[in-house]
């Protein structure tokens, strides 16, 4: 990993590590007609580089999204100071595999960003993502916390959330790839890529305490969209999310797509959450996001592929 900032400098800028995108950025490249827009890959074991290549193949490969010289944002879950085995955070191996693939397509810089709950040093030490990308040049892990690193943006379609402060660097990237881990969430029911956009804003607490959380997540989705979403369903924290510890269910599955809502919808049904078979339409923020046109809860069969390793 290239040392873009010294450790002290990172803290001076607000705290260790990160980046992101949203309003702006390049539009999705794998849409229209009957082009495949959603892929589920089962039987994923150790070789995550091969798995990600296979997963993205029906979508046109990573080269459909990343071009030479691009600045790429990866937005995993990495804001909890918990070890990867807890599954509150995205698999470090998956993040590294996606970063390598983006670099292989000519990305000039890869930013890996998430706003941490607290204790950014502990997050970096425990969740394993920084260590996993430590050998990669031009890859920067950032955990922004300082208000000066965020800019205020209006949400024109917002019903519950009408203005939000977004991580500045996120507005400057060419490609935004969401890399959420699928997990239970005691307040939102499920946490995936759509909910994960809260990791790119400054004040998350107000979404919980001063907004209708589910509607606010959907509102945020109208201005913060990833061109590609890759959902980590390798092992799912099925209870007591988002931080856990909770019950873990092995699924060895990855889901990718150009529609974050559809990716999450598939993720909801990968495993029972809270010991119940829940449908995507029962997750209020996904239902609200679909109603606002952020994405679709289900795609036509022609746009969906299921693969196995």
């Amino acid at each position, binding site marked *: 990993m290239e040392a873009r900032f010294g450790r002290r400098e990172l803290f001076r800028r607000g705290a260790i590590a990160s980046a992101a995108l949203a309003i702006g950025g390049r539009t999705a490249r794998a849409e229209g007609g009957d082009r495949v827009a959603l892929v589920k890959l089962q039987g994923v074991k150790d070789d995550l580089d091969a798995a990600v290549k296979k997963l993205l193949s029906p979508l046109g490969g990573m080269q459909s999204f990343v071009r030479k010289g691009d600045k790429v944002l990866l937005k995993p879950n990495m804001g909890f100071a918990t070890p990867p085995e*807890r599954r509150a955070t995205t698999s470090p191996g998956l993040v590294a595999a996606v970063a390598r693939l983006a670099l292989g397509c000519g990305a000039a810089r890869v930013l890996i960003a998430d706003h941490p709950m607290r204790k950014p040093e502990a997050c970096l030490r425990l969740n394993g993502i920084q260590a996993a990308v430590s050998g990669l040049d031009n890859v920067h892990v950032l955990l922004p916390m300082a208000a000066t690193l965020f800019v205020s943006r209006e949400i024109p379609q917002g019903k519950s959330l009408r203005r939000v402060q977004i991580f500045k660097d996120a507005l400057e990237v060419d490609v935004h790839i969401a890399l959420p881990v699928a997990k239970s969430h*005691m307040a939102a029911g499920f946490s995936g890529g759509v909910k994960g956009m809260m990791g790119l804003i400054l004040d*998350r607490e107000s979404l*919980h305490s001063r907004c209708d959380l589910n509607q606010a997540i959907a509102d945020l989705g109208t201005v913060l969209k990833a061109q590609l979403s890759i959902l980590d369903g390798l092992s799912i924290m099925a209870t*007591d999310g988002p931080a856990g*510890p*909770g*019950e873990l269910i092995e699924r060895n599955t990855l889901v990718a797509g150009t529609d974050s809502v559809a990716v999450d919808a598939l993720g909801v049904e990968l495993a029972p959450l*809270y010991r*119940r078979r829940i449908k995507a339409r029962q997750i209020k923020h996904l239902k609200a996001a679909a109603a606002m046109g952020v994405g679709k809860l289900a795609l036509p069969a022609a746009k969906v592929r299921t693969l196995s390793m």
Partner: protein
Amino acid sequence: MRSCPLCVLCVIAAALCAPAALAGPPAVIDLLPAGTARAGPAGEPEHFVGKKLFDYMDGGAEVFLAYGFEDLAVRQYRCKCPGGQELSVAIYTMGGPVDAYGIWSINARGKPVVGLGGPAVLARNMLSFFKGRYYVRVICQKPSEKADEVMRGLAQATAARIEGQSELPAELGLLPAGAVDGSARYLPNAECARTLWFDGEGDVLLSRGGKAFSATYTAGDSDLQCTRAVYPSAADALAACRALAAKLGLEPAGDAGACSAAGKTPDDAFAALRAEGSVLRWAGGAGDAQTAAAWLSKIE
């Protein structure tokens, strides 16, 4: 130096009040153990009050607040063993003993642990128990038999600093026997029921001041849910029954002063419910109508 009569009076008053203050309940931060033979502190205690809980856990704080969360004391410890893995002890002050049970009951499936002065379970890398109005979680980063022992030690050291004993709420005895281990829940409001019902049934059930106990049962191939809710008045129970029946797509039967309903629900399962006095009983998720009725009759 001149002496101020008012100041002297204040000093005397403060001195007289001091013993009363000292005799009050200990601050939650004082309940954290200094350490054990196998684990020593690794950092200073942290304290979160009210909505500042969002700073500690973000999503998930809502449900703690719904159980009357007041404050949290948390501290990191380090195992005095090779590798020295970190553990944490978190003590949550809840609204009252039944609220402490309620928040504990959300994640109460695991191996029972005795000797902590209250119901306790160990599951994966967390040992949790409640005692009095306190909910306690001891968490290790990587589960192992050795880590279990260190967690037990920290839990015992914590429990020893909390006075009294705790038992499961007596109301659980009004639900049918044979519930799936760790499935019983206390639901004082709709926010607490978010992870139990996903189509807004909890909002309807727990409107009008209802407070419920609920548990899961295995009946054939079905996971059946038996719920007993108590309302401030019979009129509230009646209204909640009718609203819940409507939510489930059922036609309530009975005259103006009664409510019962049964039949197939939108999730292709069967349910039966009935309001009597200030109590609403509900058996849902059954494989057929007879099973739903039979389980409804088992709810006292």
